[in-house]
């Protein structure tokens, strides 16, 4: 079947030329595993890599040899026992959205009193957990932080599942934009001198909102905007820095997909958005592709199955029929992948095979890395 020599190039390119790798794609396509594989391969090549995941999947922690799970600060992974030489280092951590957000507030606040008023505010706690884009924002913030950390020279980050690649590009500005919100200005403008919040009763719109959602909720949000006053500029500045890093040439975007029509469609959409934004797709990785099992097409295997059946060799017939089914999947998958190959560039797309078992240890990740970067990639 189609030799997949390009796989090696796709991987080499992205690991050696980047200091930040952002893995994006829709949910359930193996972004987290891909991020771990890239981190492991980078470590093999002598880099000091840290993988940040937003996925609390137990299995990854187990695969990395962390029985207590991933922590919210980088932990060194013991790579001495895998079946190949590793000259660099690998660390991993899980994104802690709320703690990262608290850290930002502490950095930008003028004093301890302001910090406490914000952290204790119900509306703030909702923002930290529920404002759309917060998770992406904190992932971007964390990667900025790690990028500046001398212990690491490569940060691999796994993004939250999202329909929109721009979510991640725009996420750092999410709070700044929120603070720019009309409601904020509605609350603040009438008393610009002292930034005193106006009484809800005097503002018909606020009165109306209070009627719908209840007055306690409204009071919390008013108190939140009040507590945040003065911090917008600091947040905006920081957001600009983070965005600059995400858009820097040393930052690579790897689009991850599974070989299914719908997820490829989303990966292509991601890719198009990235190209439009001028960042582009560095590589595309398609996980869990069915291997072809030898040369030849599904149709040929089916002919062999029929011939064997005519000779009353049922065992051989079943074996050929099995190959025919697996090759049918392989061929169908190559067909749906084509548009992604087009947008990523022919030699920037790598297919990773569906393995016969789940990955449950570092050697499993190592095997995958071997498929991605080995010279004779013949699946």
């Amino acid at each position, binding site marked *: 079947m189609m030799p997949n020599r390009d796989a090696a190039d796709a991987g080499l390119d992205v690991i050696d030329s980047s200091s930040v790798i952002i893995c994006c794609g829709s*949910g359930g396509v193996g972004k987290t595993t891909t991020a771990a594989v890239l981190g492991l391969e980078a470590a093999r090549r002598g880099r000091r890599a840290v993988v940040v995941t937003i996925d609390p999947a*137990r299995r990854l922690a187990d695969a990395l040899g962390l029985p207590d799970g991933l922590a919210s600060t980088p932990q060194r992974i013991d790579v001495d026992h895998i079946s190949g030489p590793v000259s660099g280092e690998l660390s991993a951590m899980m994104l802690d959205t709320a703690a990262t957000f608290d850290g930002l507030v502490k950095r930008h606040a003028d004093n301890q009193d302001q910090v406490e008023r914000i952290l204790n505010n119900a509306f703030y706690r909702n923002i930290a957990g529920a404002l759309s884009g917060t998770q992406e924002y904190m992932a971007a913030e964390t990667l900025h932080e790690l990028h500046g950390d001398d212990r690491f020279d490569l940060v691999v980050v796994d993004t939250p599942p999202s329909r929109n690649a721009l979510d991640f590009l725009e996420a750092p500005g999410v709070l700044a934009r929120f603070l720019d919100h009309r409601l904020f200005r509605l609350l603040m403008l009438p008393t610009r001198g002292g930034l005193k919040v106006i009484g809800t009763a005097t503002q018909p719109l606020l009165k*109306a909102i209070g*009627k719908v*959602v*209840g007055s306690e909720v409204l009071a919390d949000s008013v108190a939140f905007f009040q507590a945040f006053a003065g911090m917008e500029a600091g947040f905006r500045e920081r957001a600009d820095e983070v965005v600059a890093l995400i858009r820097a040439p040393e930052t690579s975007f790897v689009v991850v997909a599974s070989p299914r029509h719908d997820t490829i469609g989303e990966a292509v959409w991601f890719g198009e958005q990235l190209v439009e934004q001028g960042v582009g797709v560095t590589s595309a990785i398609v996980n869990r592709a069915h291997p072809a099992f030898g040369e030849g097409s599904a149709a040929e295997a089916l002919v062999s199955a029929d011939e064997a059946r005519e000779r009353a060799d049922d065992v051989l017939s079943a074996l050929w*029929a099995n190959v025919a089914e697996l090759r049918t999947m392989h061929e169908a998958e190559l067909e749906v992948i084509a548009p992604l190959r087009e947008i990523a560039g022919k030699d920037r797309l790598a297919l990773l095979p569906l393995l016969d078992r789940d990955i449950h240890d570092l050697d499993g990740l190592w095997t995958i890395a071997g498929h991605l970067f080995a010279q004779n990639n013949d699946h």
Partner: protein
Amino acid sequence: MPPESEYPLQSLTAARVVVVAGKGGVGKTTVTAVIARAASATGQRVLLVELDGKPTLANLVPDLEVLAISAPEALDEYLREHGFSRIAKRLNRTGVIEVVGTAAPGIDDIVVLGKIKQLERSGKYDLIVVDGPAAGHAITFLTSAAGLSGAVHSGPVRAQADDVLELLHDGERCQVVLVALPETTPVNEVVETAFALEDTVGVQLGPVVVNMVDVVGGSSGAGFVSGPVATVIESLPGDVATRAAVSQLDDPVVAAALVEAAAFRRSRREMEAEELARLAAALPIPRVLLPARLVAGLSPIDIDALASVLGDPGVNREAGDDA
């Protein structure tokens, strides 16, 4: 109409509203389409609801009624219908909904569930199948009502939350169907979600649908059923028989490919069987298995084929009382 004994479709459509939930990539939308198609084939008036603004569902069941519900539109509609037209207008104009949604998280989910409740009450449909929210959002989606009725003490949103809670707590009106794949992580996730939903929402759980199963027990046979390949691999030769059969072949490369392919398939199937057993042991609810198809993207034809599996009494259903 359904016979006395339960079969997959009957248990999957035991409530008027069926919310299909599961993590990304497990085939939530497929299962939504298959349930709707199977129910429609028995003459039920079926409505599909999608929440993510994608056209996938409508493409899978082109002749069925699909309604897209978005939170801002549902809130707007609710306010207008309940005498808050002026607020609705102002909320939209100022774009305050985002702020309101952050102030009271779950408000967007509440108005969506409220809209579904309204459709259920309308009596226009025998069955409403909801393609639930994406990723890990199912639990927050379904707990929004309980959370909000604790936080908001009065007003129309509170009233809506109370109505939604009533719907969620009534097993005849609403049930959740969780979707998994026969693999480690999806099984873990479905088990966690099932317990979380039972603990926090108290919603009725329907059968768990396990999607893309290579081997499906029972009379319907096995494998990638009725795909483009005519032969169905019901029983793969074992390793010994395989080696004996390929020893007659002249080309060692071909022989190796046949051996490797058989070993691969056997290994995948073993893993699936282990995961199905683990799911059965962890969750005392029935499981419905949907066979994998030999395609890299489903079409309406595949949905029809899978729906006929659901509508076939006595197949592809594993008892849930063994755990």
